[in-house]
């Protein structure tokens, strides 16, 4: 009855490029002949507000939103936003997050504590299969274009899903979505993400499992 599918939440802050990343994943799934449904929550995503999108592929599910404790992956473009979507992550799901911090005005002026990388890892510890946090800005800077951070996370994600969607198709989908003038840099970022996932991250996960 229940079919095996992949459920992903992409979270971040309005203006970070959630839609482009979401559409790349959806296109990759579509190019692989998988059924897709998802949700773009850009309606209330005012600048600087929390926002997220949902992607489901490989099932007959027609619901664009999901139950708590059901998502396989949280991909977060902003550190603290990974946590907000936590209740949707299923036990042993995977968290892939950038370490980018966008500290809201409220936190600055009301002296709220803003979580560190360690805080996030501690919170997910025991629930998530692994919490992968990357310095995407540094990686993008090394590549020479500060706007390709999301493609790094996309690369990491694609390694974990390559049994369902081949890496080549992930790459093809990305090429179709990103602006022409930054094609090369985005592909470099994607490949960097793939390398990181294959070399370092898998090690960490096998250790933590």
């Amino acid at each position, binding site marked *: 009855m229940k079919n095996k599918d992949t459920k992903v939440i992409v979270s971040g802050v309005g203006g970070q490029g959630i839609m482009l990343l979401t559409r790349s994943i959806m296109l990759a799934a579509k190019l692989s002949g998988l059924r897709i449904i998802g*949700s773009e929550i850009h*309606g209330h995503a005012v*600048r600087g507000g929390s926002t997220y999108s949902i992607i489901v592929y490989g099932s007959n599910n027609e*619901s664009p*939103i999901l139950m708590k404790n059901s998502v396989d992956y949280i991909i977060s473009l902003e550190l603290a936003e990974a946590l*907000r979507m936590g209740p949707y992550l299923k036990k042993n799901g995977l968290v892939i997050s950038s370490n980018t911090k966008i500290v809201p005005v*409220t936190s600055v*002026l009301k002296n709220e504590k803003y*979580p560190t990388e360690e805080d996030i890892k501690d919170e997910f510890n025991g629930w998530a299969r692994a919490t992968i946090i990357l310095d995407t800005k540094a990686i993008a800077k090394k590549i020479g274009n500060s706007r390709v951070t999301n493609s790094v996370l996309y690369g990491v994600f694609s390694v974990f899903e390559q049994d369902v969607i081949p890496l080549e198709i992930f790459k093809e989908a990305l090429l179709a979505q990103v602006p022409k003038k930054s094609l090369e840099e985005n592909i470099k970022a994607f490949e960097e993400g793939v390398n990181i996932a294959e070399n370092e991250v898998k090690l960490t996960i096998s250790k933590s499992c």
Partner: protein
Amino acid sequence: MLGDEAIARGAVEAGVRFVASYPGTPSTEITTSLVEYAKKYKFHVEWSANEKVAFEAAYGASLSGLRALVGTKHLGMNVLSDSLLVAAYGGVRGGLVITCVDDSHPYSSQNAMDSRYYCLLAHIPCLEPSTPNEAKELTKIAFELSEKFSLPVVLRTTQRIAHARGLVKTEDINSYNLSVTPKFVKDKSRFVLLAKEAYERKKWLFNQMKEIEKELGTFGAEVIYDTGSKLGVVGVGIGAAYAKYVAEELGIEGIKILKLNLSNPLPKKALIDFAEKVDEVLVLEDGDPIVEHAIRNLLAIEDIRKHVRGKDNSVVSSFGELDPDKVSESFVLMGLVKNNIEVFEPRATVTRSGGLCAGCPHMASYYVIKEVLRQRGGGIVAGDRGCYNQGAKFPLEALDTCMDMGASIGIAYGISKAGVKEPIIAVIGDSTFFHAGLPALANATYNHAKFTITIFDNGWTSMTGQQPSFSTGLTATGLPTNRLFPELLAKDLGVSFVEVVDPFDVDKAKEILNKALDYEGVSVVIFRHECALQEERRLRAQGIKRKPYFVDPKKCTGCRLCLTKTGCQALRFSDGKMTIDTELCTACGLCAYVCPFDAISQLGESL
């Protein structure tokens, strides 16, 4: 394809020739998508002054034989309802479809009303898709139905369908309607509705709905899940998608799910057959319990004794949007599944609500208003609907009221007329001013009040994604047109004190606002500066990058006044000092103006 885009596609496949809408999240993309099709297929698309005007325009086109569409969110239904409830009596000629998206939570609206009441009130059909693909299909059916039975038809979705992305099967574009020559055939018995005609037309209207019910039979009712007969779930529109997903995910046994895509008129026979086959009925619908009431009523009339569960008996939560978690709770309450779902609960989440964009001219306008009122010992600020209502949020907290479109002027007028002596300021954007501000302004000058209206004129309908407004000088499809100036209209409507100022010229703006508040009568101050996002786009296209500002850490005392007074999102704070995100900074200079320590200046200035 996005649900909204699927609706647009359906309309184009059905041969739509006339589109009139007002932007409103989550329905805007229906029309922005139609704008693109219109460029190719040469039909008319416009952003109208408001939804009532849009509906009347579309109705006129329909009476001339064209297929017409009105795109709106639920709140716009209130505005167009005055026309709709009469137009239903006259009936249509070319198919006329209102595509309405309800923000049922709400996420970006001032209420969460259910538009389907208007379909009951107007006695017109209501179709409810459960997926983007169905949204496209049902839009086409809506046009056929409308034309065949001469009634306006509503396609009602909620934000989840509107912003759902799924695969949509496209078909050929109906070109027959493109060759229809518009012709208005007179029929005074239908279109000149005085009381006598209205009495007769109501009979006709009721009869049409009976005919539609007969014609449609069991259309709009389909069993999509069947594991038993303990419970019969009626999932209306997206409710059906949620029900099936949750039932499959939790492996629920003993239930049937009926997908209902037609909520007015109901496919009665199909619903009765379904109810007779199950022990109990549960209705899942996003909005008020409208179908739930109708089914309870239907079963009572037919003398079928079955419990109908739903929102009235608290089996389904009444507040916020319907979602899979609420559906799962309902299944727990009905004893179909045990509540043993363990959920990860994060301990530390950060409050983040967003606000005005970096460099937004509204920041400067609010700064001027707040400073002037502070110096005058306080005052009342009545806000309105648009980007500028972000000024209600921390840290600006500049608004004392924020209700419906145009209400800033109406409420400020009422407060002033009531005899309150404090300074009273209405805040309204250019698009909202044209939508609903004009009658309120005429009322204020005609009835002699004393208050100040500030029009935040940024030249675009920005909240919904920078659609052209009447003050842009462009039509929906980007063609040049008359630009309307609020200052000229204000003068014509009897305002003697009218001034225009750039809010970033802070000292001058403060001086003008003070004079306006001193003025004995209605005064209008127009804060004019283009939307920062549009300005940035325009400059970037010209290859211009303005030099961002920076904070001198030696001078910065960490007082954070720049942030408290402006709320600018380009400002950051770390290790006791402010910094500026150079990617976001638009070089508006407001923070530098505010800083009492002269710690902020433009890059290159002091180097």
